[in-house]
């Protein structure tokens, strides 16, 4: 890459790393694993930089690499572990109390980690990044019906593990 491209890449990393980290954290449940995942996505984006015409393409490319890496080609499941003995059924009551909010975060994180990588990716794409089913299918390289199926199963599990999220499904499971 020339100096201009180097500077553009540096700007891109500086501006978008944290946004990528946020999604990666939901995918992995761990700070270090999230950094590793984003590092891998950024590195492959760097190698493809000359082929990416616009900066928006760079972020889309990086996100696609990130999701594929997490779902497909990393040899081992790269997620934090769920601690044994967690009683998720009793967790999840949301209030404005900071302590309860922390408990809720723990419950949600563990519930996410109990999903399959593909289910977790679908949930993050649909409910965190606001992608449609069609867009999620394109990013993951699967059919729309697969996205629907994975999403439905994931929501069922999340509803079970985090009871106060039951509300979400009724309003959100329709096609978009």
């Amino acid at each position, binding site marked *: 890459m020339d100096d201009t491209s180097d500077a553009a890449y540096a700007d891109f990393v500086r501006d978008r790393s944290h946004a990528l980290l946020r999604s990666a954290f939901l995918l992995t449940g761990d700070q270090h694993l999230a950094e590793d995942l984003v590092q891998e996505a950024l*590195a492959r984006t760097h190698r493809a930089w000359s082929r990416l015409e616009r900066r928006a393409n760079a972020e889309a490319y990086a996100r696609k690499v990130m999701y594929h890496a997490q779902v497909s080609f*990393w040899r081992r*499941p790269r997620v934090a*572990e769920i601690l044994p003995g967690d009683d998720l059924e009793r967790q999840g009551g949301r209030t404005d109390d900071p302590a309860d909010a922390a408990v809720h*975060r723990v419950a949600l994180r563990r519930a996410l980690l109990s999903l399959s990588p593909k289910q977790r990716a679908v949930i993050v794409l649909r409910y965190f990044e*606001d992608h449609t089913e069609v867009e999620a299918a394109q990013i993951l390289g699967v059919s729309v019906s697969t996205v629907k199926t994975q999403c439905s199963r994931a929501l069922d599990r999340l509803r079970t593990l985090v009871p*106060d999220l039951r*509300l979400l499904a009724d309003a*959100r499971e329709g096609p978009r």
Partner: protein
Amino acid sequence: MTGQDPLRTSLEDLAGTVAPADLYERSLRRSRRIGRREAAVGTGAVLLALGLLGSGLWQLPHSTGPRADGVVSAPLSPSAHAPATSHAAGSAVSPGTPTGRPDRPDRPRPTSTISLKPRSTSLAALPGKAFYEEAGTGGGLFRLTRHGVPERVLSAPFSTAGVSPDGERIAYVTDGQLMVVGTGGSDAQQVYAGTTSSDQAPAWSPDGNRLLIDAADPGVLDVATGHLEPLPSGLDGEHYRWSGDGTTLVYATPSCGLEVAGVDAQTGTPVPEQTATSGPAACRPVSVDATGDLVTVQTGAPAAGAAADAPADAVLDTRTGELVELPVRGTIVGAVFDPDGNLLVRSVRDGRTRLSLFDPAFSLLVQAREPRSLRGLDLVAYTR
């Protein structure tokens, strides 16, 4: 999308807990490694094709196709020579093995899963030196004295550190500088500048003359001359560790698999999929036995954000990918090999912490209560 539903709000809340990180340099380093690996594989394929054409093997009607690992094991470039080869003691690497993994009889395994009777129950009978680190990085490095007292041997701030095989020197990284200091309190000397250490603590060669470090790329540093020889690009990984005999490297791949490679190999051999472990076990080998057949790893479930340097709690067979059941009661909270293949295990049972030292044949040499003064410290190394 309304953005007001509970799941979205909860995901936003959870994602907000991730800490910012500067990934620019890390991503560039990884990009360079990917580039070199792609180039190496491409060059290897060309060389193989030329070799086949020259040898006429392509004309054999029933010849089997070349193995993939054979492709990349060809000498690829003059720079892909690991200096450890020429210096390694006893580096009798079988030339016929594509990745140079020495062919040797199976290492002994524990013959019993129940506790054995130790030859000694005195801490003073430990023939080597045990080193501890304050939990978390840079908190201090301590050596356990024969009187059972932790003696601070490194007080300077550091991000990562490695203890020499004889236990007499410490290499540590501080502010990107690689320093070496004697455990007796001598002045620290800078031996390299520009070290990035998040993925690689300084790893001493068995002869104590070289350090495997992560500079711009992983390489072997001659401590005396300051010359850094990059590792072959096919050894794409992090957390490299030497076997005690100097013939083998064990390391983690960027995708969290373990690989084993002879020191003059161009690529590594993946350790079979570990079915009995999960989590970070394959992300960071902690210490390697004398031959490279066994490695200590961390298999537990550390708290989020604290996984990077947790002590090993298990021994894994690099030939089978299976865990080796150790004859130790209680929960293992530390396990380290010394260069000779002796294994020091730290375990907790009923609130009491014990140290158990096994020889390479898994005979129990010493089992002793660990002093309470070591609570809050992690076992990180055991040396001669």
